[in-house]
């Protein structure tokens, strides 16, 4: 139900072009991707996230108070008109992203942390351990994330279902990218030097390998975030998330659909806000992937 497969299984190969064995030092500057352009998407993402976080404070009206007739067209006090119950659409859009995005952030963070830990371990251990981790990942990936979230929602609350599904379907992907990269990095001279110095595996992983994974992990976290946002929006639109009258972009989509002919803004404003967030977060992730060294 969320995205095209949504919830996509996206994977960035790293082995081919990271330059196996190079230390993660300064890389040759590329002609394209000069500083301002490179920072455009991440800056937009940070701005947008701040705006969504502060949105409830900026709302001109309380999001659940009736301020005019139902489906009123935009005017002075309600710049985006009103919804089915005469509530201010602008206030509801400003207040409606906080819950969705914070849920997506928690879900993505959980997936990335677990996936990175599993990837670090299996990439470092190699051999049988790595194969076992990969096999468990394959098993989990056979169930599409939206289906997993729905099935989990029989027993868990919508939010817990989103987090659990995001971890079960996302962590294996993160683990795989990280493990591939670690398997390459551990052959690097600076890593071997640390091992020769007698440092123990956890110290080497934390101090020598983790910093080199920064770009990769950021890019991957962006993908997990977009997927979690899609999951959260889907469950919410299906009525398994926040309940009315909570302001929530996905709920607003369903509530706004019947009144499209009267006040299209009640439907289009939350739809565009949701779409914009997902687009910008995805772009920031791709940008981190390009500039972070790991393609």
């Amino acid at each position, binding site marked *: 139900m*969320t995205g095209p497969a949504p*919830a996509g299984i996206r994977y960035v190969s790293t082995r081919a072009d990271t330059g196996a064995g190079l230390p993660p030092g300064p890389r040759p500057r590329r002609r394209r991707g000069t500083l301002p352009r490179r920072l455009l998407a991440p800056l937009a993402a940070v701005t947008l996230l701040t705006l969504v976080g502060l949105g409830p404070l900026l709302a001109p009206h309380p999001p659940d108070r009736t301020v005019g007739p139902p489906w009123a067209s935009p005017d002075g006090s309600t710049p985006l008109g009103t919804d089915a119950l005469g509530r201010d659409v602008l206030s509801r859009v400003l207040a409606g992203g906080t819950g969705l995005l914070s849920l997506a952030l928690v879900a993505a963070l959980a997936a990335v942390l677990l996936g990175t830990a599993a990837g670090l371990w299996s990439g470092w251990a190699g051999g049988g351990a790595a194969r076992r981790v990969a096999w468990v990942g394959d098993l989990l990936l056979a169930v599409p994330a*939206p289906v997993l979230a729905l099935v989990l929602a029989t027993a868990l609350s919508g939010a817990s279902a989103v987090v659990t599904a995001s971890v079960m379907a996302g962590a294996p992907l993160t683990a795989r990218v990280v493990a591939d990269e670690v398997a390459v990095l551990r052959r690097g001279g600076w890593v071997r030097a640390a091992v020769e110095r007698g440092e123990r595996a956890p110290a080497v992983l934390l101090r020598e390998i983790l910093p080199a994974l920064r770009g990769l992990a950021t890019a991957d976290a962006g993908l997990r975030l977009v997927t979690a946002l899609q999951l959260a929006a889907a469950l919410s639109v299906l009525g398994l998330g926040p309940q009315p009258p909570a302001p929530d972009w996905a709920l607003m989509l369903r509530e706004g659909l019947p009144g499209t002919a009267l006040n299209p803004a009640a439907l289009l404003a939350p739809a565009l806000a*949701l779409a914009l967030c997902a687009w910008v977060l995805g772009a920031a992730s791709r940008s981190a992937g390009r500039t972070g060294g790991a393609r």
Partner: protein
Amino acid sequence: MSPRLPARLSARVAVLALAATVVVFAATELLPGDAGDTRDAGRATEEEIAARRVELGLDRPAPVRYLLWLGGLLTGDPGRSLITGRPVAEILGERLPATTALVAVSLLLATLLTALALLLAHLRGGRGGSIAAGLAAVPQPAWAAVLGGLLAGLLGWVPPVSLLPPGGSAWSSPQALVLPALTLALPSAAYATGLLQGVLVDTLRRPHVVDAERRGLSPLAVLWRHVVPFLWVPALRVGALLAGGITAGTALVETIFGYPGIGGLLVSAVAVRDIPVVQAAALPPILVLLAGVLVADLVAARSGAGAGDGTGAADEGFRPRTPDPIGGVR
């Protein structure tokens, strides 16, 4: 190709399918209470609930219940609905044609759109990948809202609710398919374009393609004769992802547009905790995805056979990285 490879690939997919049924079953087992009190919530006495639990077999340990459920599934009897008491197979059976029609139309539409987008991107020098990736990130509810609001609300071209006439099939009222199919196909096509764009660009850098361009072949001839043959396997793998994703997406789309299929059934069963229906209705997306993976793997294994015939073009090292729904990038 080793002669045993197809058998090995089929076995891998069978194990994955089995594991998926375990995941689905275990996920519905997380509920602290159980189905014993679902039907008569609050109205039954302790003894009645205990009797119902025995009747439904809930007093047995979970592994036994899983095996019984799996056995029922394989023999075509996944139990009865806790709400209506009707056999799950019957409920699913009457909704299967509608969902099959929706998935088939959406998949066809997504394939055509992806081919078109890739062709456009190729003719424009390999650009447009970030637009496709951006569109693919947009959550499906937003697509549903914008398409529904535009086509049904503002333009009035199609009905806002995709009800089918009683007894009628989706093919007899194609206007009901427009909104659900577009909502499923557009983001899927964007996603597939984003994935295949990279493979296309990689293929275009290959020596034989560069040579063909230098020989003065037209871009379309280069594309058809020297690039497309390399794209079959990646395209099939992405196709498996799309088919699984579209089938999974029916849950959302059928619910929003009121289309009477298995996806909508899954959502309503989740809402009332009708566990047997949830367990069975969750399986189609998994089976479609795994069937697609198997087809892609078998075709990849067959084309891998060309490596030994001396042409070398299909040699493993020459193949572009291809996304694999289950196994990452090959």
